[in-house]
């Protein structure tokens, strides 16, 4: 067992895929200089400017041209610096990237990966802190990965790039320079659509996305000392969503909390709740509780941001409420 930084998982996977598949190429702003967080550092030296393409500030067209390149055989990886900027490229992503395979009756493939950072932290304000995975989950044809640790950035990114469908790969800014343990199966692509039970527990299930997985694990350890046995499920990808693993856990514990950093209203949590209540109706001992951001843009002031951001405290409170039936 060794430890690795989240960002290094990304760099590793990019390098590996660039090495093993000549069709892989990268597009993004400042990526020949490593991008703002260093995820693409040094790649241009090894693979050249034709494959590591610095682009102008033209997100809509850059996503579109990556799709176009994909339609003639490329396997492009686009870095959209912040997922907040993906709003500029939604037409290309949704109307072409996601739909071309279906609209063409299977004639065209779009093996595109879009990497983008997201998440709250550092007081960066409402244009650099959003979580938009629920939009993407609602778009048929897209896959959406949300790694929670360094091993997964590597394995899920490998799988995303190798996948023949467009995948949006969402990297939480707050995880970038944290380190996690890397297991023995490190280096193998992790299939998209397979949740993982990060901690088994008998009393209550916490389904958590990305950074919230780590918060959930911390809460679980704490509550274990009080005799509350928390199971933590990490879906890893929200599209496809491995609902079987989630429902299995819900049936076992009968109590569920769903946690993500996105705004609660219309978030991925709603979809997970809707599916659980349908598939595990008779097993539930309490209403499912969601943890997420309030219905507001992300404030810039650190004092507000702290209050705004959902995290361990909110998960803990929700778990207690669900366990005590005090929902």
């Amino acid at each position: 067992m060794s430890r690795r930084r989240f960002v290094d998982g990304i760099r590793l996977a990019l390098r590996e895929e660039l090495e093993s598949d000549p069709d892989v190429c990268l597009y993004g702003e400042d990526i020949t200089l490593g991008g703002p967080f260093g995820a693409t550092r040094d790649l241009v030296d090894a693979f050249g400017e034709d494959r590591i393409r610095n682009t102008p500030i033209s997100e809509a067209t850059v996503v579109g041209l990556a799709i176009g390149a994909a339609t003639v055989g490329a396997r492009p990886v686009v870095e959209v610096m912040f997922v907040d900027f993906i709003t500029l490229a939604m037409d290309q992503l949704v109307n072409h990237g996601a739909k071309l395979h279906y609209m063409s009756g299977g004639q065209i493939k779009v093996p595109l990966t879009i990497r983008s950072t997201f998440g709250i932290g550092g007081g960066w304000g409402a244009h650099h802190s959003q979580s938009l995975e629920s939009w993407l989950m609602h778009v048929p044809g897209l896959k959406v990965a949300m790694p929670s640790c360094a091993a997964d950035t590597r394995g899920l990114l490998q799988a995303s790039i190798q996948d023949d469908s467009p995948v949006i790969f969402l990297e939480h800014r707050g995880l970038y320079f944290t380190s996690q343990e890397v297991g023995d199966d490190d280096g193998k692509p992790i299939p998209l659509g397979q949740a993982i039970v990060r901690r088994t527990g008998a009393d209550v299930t916490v389904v958590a996305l990305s950074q919230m997985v780590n918060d959930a694990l911390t809460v679980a350890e704490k509550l274990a000392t009080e005799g509350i046995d928390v199971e933590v499920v990490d879906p890893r990808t929200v599209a496809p969503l491995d609902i079987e693993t989630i429902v299995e856990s819900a049936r076992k514990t009968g109590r569920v909390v769903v946690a993500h950093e996105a705004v609660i209203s219309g978030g991925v949590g709603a979809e997970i709740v809707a599916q659980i209540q349908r598939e595990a109706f008779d097993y539930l001992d309490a209403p499912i509780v969601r943890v997420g951001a309030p219905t507001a843009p992300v404030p810039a002031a650190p004092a507000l941001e702290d209050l705004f951001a959902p995290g361990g405290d909110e998960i803990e409170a929700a778990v207690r409420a669900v366990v005590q039936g005090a929902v």
Partner: protein
Amino acid sequence: MSSASAKNKAAAAQETADADALRAMLDTMWTARAFEERASELYAEGEIKGLLHLGIGQEGVSIGACSVLDPGDVVYGTHRPHVHAIAKGADITKLMAELAGRSTGYCGGKGGSMHVAAPEVGFITATGIVAGNIPLGLGAADEFKRRGSKKIAVVFHGDGASQTGSFHESINIASLWKLPLVMICENNGWAEFTPLSSHTNVERLAVHAETYGIPTVTIDGNDAFAVREAVAVAVERARSGGGPTFIECLTQRLRGHYEGDPGKYRELSQLEEWKKKDPIQRFMVALAERGVEFDADKVEQAARDRVEVAIKEALAGPLPTEADVASQVYA
């Protein structure tokens, strides 16, 4: 054999080849025309549904352009894509079947008119989003360049598309990366019901290319010869690493924006004027002037016959079924 007579023979062979190519263009023009005229009728009869944008009157542009493309080159069309697809060699039976929502259509009926795709002949896709195809073609060109391939990409777009952000972002990148892309503007003077002058103060859209130092010409798009020649230059430039070209083709659509458009915004009194500029008629005159032999009636009739056969086969095709509804979502 003397070298002079060998040269003569080669020249004669070339002339025959050229004449064949030009006759093939005429065939294609009539095929497209017959196809769309019948599509219009089938639409009126309810055999075809959806939003149908016809290119009747604009055939000179894409058929002229595609006449100098290789099979491996790729084309990205607009919401008015039938002529583009036929120009690139699409099978009219599969195309008609697609319009008619049959499972034997190019896309199994999933795309319909506006999203028809025939990648097997290099017509990668059409789009329902104005200018949406421009970045796509740009990306294909970038991929060809990266691979060191000799293939090139062509995008067709309307005058209305030239006020979109994607157009401008794309033309900048095409110039910056010197991509093997030919942008062909079908400037028919209208975006839906609004004339170009209400959408921009720019009179010659070719100006947008000049900004970036991209070679550009504005030509008569109803003169298929002129288009063919201008695009040949552009294709040669693109293939030899000379980068993109922008070609503004002035043309007119002889139909409404879409089938069913009452067309009250245009002076229909001018329709007769426009018809005089019909690209097919003009192409036939030009062929005759160049001594290329053809039988006008036969060519037209043959095209109409081909289209009838295609329609018959297309409409006999089965409808897609429940199993198709949610298949092919992921690749």
